[in-house]
């Protein structure tokens, strides 16, 4: 029973009034002195105790009358109809939602979960139907609704722990959709999980409507111990033409006890390279840095292993390393001595990636010079003749990057205006008075994004004494402007390529930006952006999707999963093939059909680090969020929205009866009290 206006229950305090009146009256009564009560005592009368009991009965009548009247004002109503009680005895539609995320591999959690699921199946009647939903990051309907308990148990027995992360939202939504399809009135979902807190953000829009219940079975253990390797870092160094890698492994102890002197091992290509001892305090992190090793070739597989605990899956961390390829940059300058000194020195410092810089003059440039170049820099120079006739344009359209650094010597042929983002004008001299500075930077652009945070690069300190006027087209994107509003940098995209024009020099002739701290990251960002450089990930996370199209085009691939399963992928471009969901932890091999034997392309896949955090959620919190009730509501409820107005009114009409009963009780109390007082010899 619920109440429309429960605030009226404050009126229950009025029950105290008769009690108070009774007590006050008792206190105030007159005392008459009498010589002796010898004869009064002899008169047969009800004992004091009996008299009090009778008065208590009156008091109770008064209190009950007040309570009934208050309850009437609170407007009680019955949310569940008689149909609900009738339905309580009917068949059930059950959805068993079984967690098979990686964290369920902890100790005997999954065995306990299977037991719980089996007990749900065994509790079914012949009329009941159940669906088995297995979930980790995503949910799947493993066994469709069936009354066959043997099949359900078989499916439960066959379920295994996966490497996926825990997410309750999709599973609950799937359960809700299955229950919503059912025509049975008693619908319930049983969620069996270790209730990792990380799997429920509370913002999932998974809601059960009235009539569906969610029951939870938690298999979480108290006082878990879990050491994991959530991430690793690589420091690359070039050494005699080869790359040397220093691996630093992070360790995280989510348990309540410290782990002491556990061995942390680095394995490369199946060979143990080094092992170190590490100690990590409870709920703390640590790291282990291994000695350098030389990266011999591409697709070197490695793994970090740290100790053993009840959840072994997150004690290993896989990675694949490939020597980084340098970004090839062609700098064309006017041939002056040290004309490109600042640019070439800046690019020589880069490690991720390394830059391979070649400096030349316009006269020496040939169309072949653009081949295999990632970026071409025209540094304060005339337009190279070999770039004419569309050669440079073709290079850009194929995906090449072009950086035009303007200066005194910059000229642009009228036939190639498409390659310059704007119409070039005369030089603007800011020597007189205050020099110019950068007044606007588009921090949303990838080039300047790294400078977005405070104290991440101060461009205001750079002075610009001279620059070339440039009028960009409306379609061009202005990346920076000087304090007088003139364009400082502008971008234009042609085909797959990118062009950026910088209207001042990148040396110390027109500006002192080259001697400011922001210079080095600026040049690196410009070149990386134009070269479309992206660092190759050394590992991916379970649940991510691998795009084969980006790795090999137009060829049939065979994907070998860590468990040894072979998945043939047709050539990219046909249907939607080319996407592989990474569901297992370990190394995926990507083999090209008919390719020569060699080291196959590899992708390392690791667990989602949040899966290592076994801190449990209070299941009732989840139930409350999903159903709106803190505890499962027993019995199926008829859909209230389908009730007629008359039925709604009838269920809310209880207050009439309560009010009537209260008034009748008051009337009866008056009659009884009068009669009693008339017959009463004693107070």
């Amino acid at each position, binding site marked *: 029973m619920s109440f429309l206006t429960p605030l009226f229950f404050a009126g229950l305090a009025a029950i105290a009034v008769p009690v108070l009146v009774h007590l006050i009256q008792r206190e105030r*009564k*007159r*005392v*008459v002195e*009498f010589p*002796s009560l010898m004869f*009064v005592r002899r008169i047969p009368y009800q004992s004091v105790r009996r008299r009090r009991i009778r008065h208590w009965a009156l008091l109770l009548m008064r209190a009950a009358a007040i309570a009934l009247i208050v309850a009437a004002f609170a407007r009680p109503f019955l949310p569940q109809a008689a149909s609900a009680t009738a339905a309580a005895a009917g068949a059930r539609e059950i959805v068993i939602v079984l967690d098979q995320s990686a964290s369920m591999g902890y100790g005997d959690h999954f065995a306990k979960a299977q037991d719980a699921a089996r007990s749900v199946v065994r509790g079914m009647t012949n009329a009941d139907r159940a669906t088995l939903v297995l979930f980790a990051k995503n949910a799947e309907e493993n066994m469709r609704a069936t009354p066959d308990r043997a099949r359900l148990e078989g499916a439960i027995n066959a379920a295994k722990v996966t490497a996926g992360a825990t997410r309750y939202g999709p599973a609950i939504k799937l359960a809700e959709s299955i229950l919503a399809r059912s025509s049975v009135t008693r619908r319930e979902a049983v969620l069996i999980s270790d209730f990792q807190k990380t799997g429920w953000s509370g913002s999932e829009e998974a809601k059960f409507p009235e009539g569906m219940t969610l029951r939870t079975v938690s298999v979480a253990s108290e006082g878990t111990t879990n050491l994991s390797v959530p991430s690793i870092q690589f420091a690359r160094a070039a050494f005699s033409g080869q790359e040397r890698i220093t691996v630093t492994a992070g360790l995280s102890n989510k348990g309540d006890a410290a782990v002491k002197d556990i061995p942390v091992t680095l394995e490369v290509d199946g060979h143990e390279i080094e092992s170190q001892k590490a100690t990590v305090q409870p709920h703390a992190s640590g790291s282990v840095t291994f000695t350098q090793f030389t990266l011999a070739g591409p697709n070197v597989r490695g793994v970090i292993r740290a100790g053993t605990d009840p959840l072994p899956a997150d004690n290993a961390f896989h990675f694949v390393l490939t020597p980084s390829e340098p970004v090839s940059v062609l700098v064309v300058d006017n041939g002056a001595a040290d004309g490109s000194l600042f640019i070439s020195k800046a690019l020589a410092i880069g490690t991720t990636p390394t830059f391979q810089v070649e400096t030349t003059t316009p006269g020496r440039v040939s169309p072949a010079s653009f081949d295999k170049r990632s970026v071409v820099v025209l540094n304060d120079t005339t337009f190279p003749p070999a770039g004419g006739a569309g050669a440079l344009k073709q290079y850009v359209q194929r995906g090449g990057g072009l950086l035009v650094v303007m200066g005194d010597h910059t000229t642009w042929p009228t036939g190639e205006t498409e390659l310059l983002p704007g119409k070039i004008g005369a030089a603007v001299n800011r020597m007189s008075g205050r020099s110019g500075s950068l007044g606007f930077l588009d921090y949303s652009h990838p080039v300047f994004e790294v400078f977005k945070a405070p104290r991440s690069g101060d461009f205001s300190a750079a002075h610009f004494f001279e620059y070339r006027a440039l009028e960009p087209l409306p379609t061009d994107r202005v990346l920076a402007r000087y304090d007088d509003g003139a364009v400082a940098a502008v971008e234009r995209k042609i085909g797959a390529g990118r062009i950026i024009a910088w209207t001042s020099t990148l040396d110390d002739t027109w500006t002192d930006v080259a001697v400011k701290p922001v210079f080095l990251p600026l040049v690196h960002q410009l070149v990386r952006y134009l070269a479309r450089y992206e660092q190759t990930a050394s590992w991916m996370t379970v649940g991510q999707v691998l795009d084969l199209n980006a790795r090999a085009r137009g060829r049939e691939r065979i994907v070998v999963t860590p468990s040894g399963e072979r998945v043939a992928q047709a050539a990219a471009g046909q249907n939607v093939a080319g996407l592989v969901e990474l569901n297992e932890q370990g190394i995926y091999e990507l083999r090209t059909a008919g390719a020569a034997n060699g080291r196959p392309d590899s992708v390392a896949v690791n667990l989602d680090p949040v899966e290592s955090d076994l801190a449990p959620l209070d299941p009732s919190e989840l139930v409350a969020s999903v159903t709106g009730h803190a505890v499962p509501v027993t019995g199926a409820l008829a859909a209230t929205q389908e009730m007629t107005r008359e039925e709604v009114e009838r269920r809310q009409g209880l207050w009439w009866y309560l009010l009537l009963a209260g008034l009748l009780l008051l009337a009866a109390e008056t009659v009884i009290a009068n009669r009693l007082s008339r017959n009463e010899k*004693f107070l």
Partner: protein
Amino acid sequence: MTTSQAIPGARFVDPKILSRIGNLELMARSVVEGFINGLHRAPFFGASIDFAEHRGYVAGDDIRRVDWRLYARTDRYYVKQYEADTNTNLMVLFDVSKSMSFGSRGIPKLEYASFVAACLGYLAQRQRDRVGIITFDKEIVDHVPPSAKHFNVMLQTLDRAKAQRAGHLVEPLTRMAEFFKRRSIIVVISDLYEEPDAILEAMKPLKFLGNDLIVFHVLDPAELQFDYDDASSFEDLESGEQIPVVPQSLAEEYRALIKSHIDALTTKFSEHRIDYTMLNTSEPLDRALFGYLSSRERFMRVR
């Protein structure tokens, strides 16, 4: 139930007016003189010089007592014998228990009882009787032995008597029985809140030695009528016990009970030749005196 019996010539004085006199002796004189004056030829007044009989002269008799006239007629010596000395003891046993302090609309029972005792004392003193008093509640409070000179002491004792403590009849009366060595008229003035059998048992020892016992049962009209209106909590003056009571519903039964109590006392006392008088404090004092005098007359006859 007692009602005022009109005694011819008696000057009835309202106890309330008497209470204003303040002086017990003056009050007692007013009452008693008025009462006596009203009684013409009171048959109860014996005189100690009254002739009783003749007896033969014996050697050694005082010759002044020889009745010479009889000698003249009979020629024999006879000696005149007169009535013996009729002086007696009046002992008042005066209840000063807390319940005696009750008075609903006039004077308290204790004061009324004092008047009665004072009047009796005065009457006795006038007749040259010896008067004494014992006040008691649950034990003996004051003891004034009987003496012809103790009337004033008695009045003082009555004057300072205060009803303070709970009372009990049996123990003090049993003890008092030891005091009486001579035949006495013993007057008990009390409200007699005890069981009739218990009261009788307590009185019996006083009857030894041929004592004459007069019991004055002093009750307030409220105790007889129980004419209260409002429902109230009634508190026992002696025990302090409180009982919430609705008087209208209870009065009938109460009156029946107190009547049966008085009837029982009347019956039992008469069986044991004890003079019992119920006194209503709203009525004049003459009944008390009448009771006393009738008792004294009986006493003289019995001798």
